[in-house]
């Protein structure tokens, strides 16, 4: 039997690069969600948090962080299929290899990290005459 893995949150998890299921860079770990069981007293890390507003909240700009998260939800195109209930929250069981980067079993499109880029591409860049790129369908 192997020893259980020991990690330090700020050293081994925070700010690590996230790789999606296809190995595409899809953001960084901006914060962790921690759940405390009032009955047993046990505490667990339940999710990796990433995306617009999360880092601002962590750095103390909590109002700006919440506002950014709300604004990002408004620009998110709902026709993009997603597997996550909250696009800034990756359940910890979906985290795979943890090293210099952390692989997660979701697609980059399931995360909020690039919503602003996607929105800009679809609603602005794609409509500029002479634009040779095509907005994602």
């Amino acid at each position, binding site marked *: 039997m192997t020893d*259980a*893995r*020991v*990690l*330090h*949150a*700020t*050293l*081994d*998890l*925070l700010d690590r690069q996230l790789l999606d299921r296809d190995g595409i860079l899809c953001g960084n770990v901006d*914060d*962790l*969600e*921690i*759940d*405390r069981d009032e009955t047993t*007293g*046990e*505490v*667990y*890390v339940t999710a990796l*948090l990433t995306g617009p507003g999360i880092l601002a*909240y*962590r750095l103390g700009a909590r109002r700006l962080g919440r506002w950014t998260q709300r604004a990002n939800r408004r620009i998110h195109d709902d026709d993009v299929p997603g597997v996550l209930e909250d696009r800034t929250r990756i*359940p*910890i*069981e979906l985290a795979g290899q943890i090293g210099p980067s952390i692989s997660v079993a979701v697609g980059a499109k399931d995360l909020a990290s690039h919503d602003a880029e996607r929105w800009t591409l679809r609603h602005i860049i794609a409509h500029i005459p002479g634009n040779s790129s095509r907005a994602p369908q």
Partner: protein
Amino acid sequence: MRLSDLLHYTVRDSDGIELGRVSDVRIVQDGRILRGVQAAFRVDALVVGRGGVAERLGYMRARVNGPWLVRVLLTRFEQRAHVIEVDQIDHWDDDAAVITLRAGRR
């Protein structure tokens, strides 16, 4: 709760003496099996105080002994740090961001 919230908590012993602020969290992956895939990430201990770097590098409780110069320097840091196992926590005051330890623990 977010980790960034927890890093603002102050830890006090049962007599109300302040030990410091949470500087890191030690996690052990030995919890219940999640979705049949892997063990849950249990928070095993809080690193409290400014000597957190010594704990991360393995210099707390003499787990690493050398090189001697690093050991001497980090042992001095260690004296300013506490590793508080979660089962030593008596009370979480989320409003005041204060964690109080059980009696007999320092």
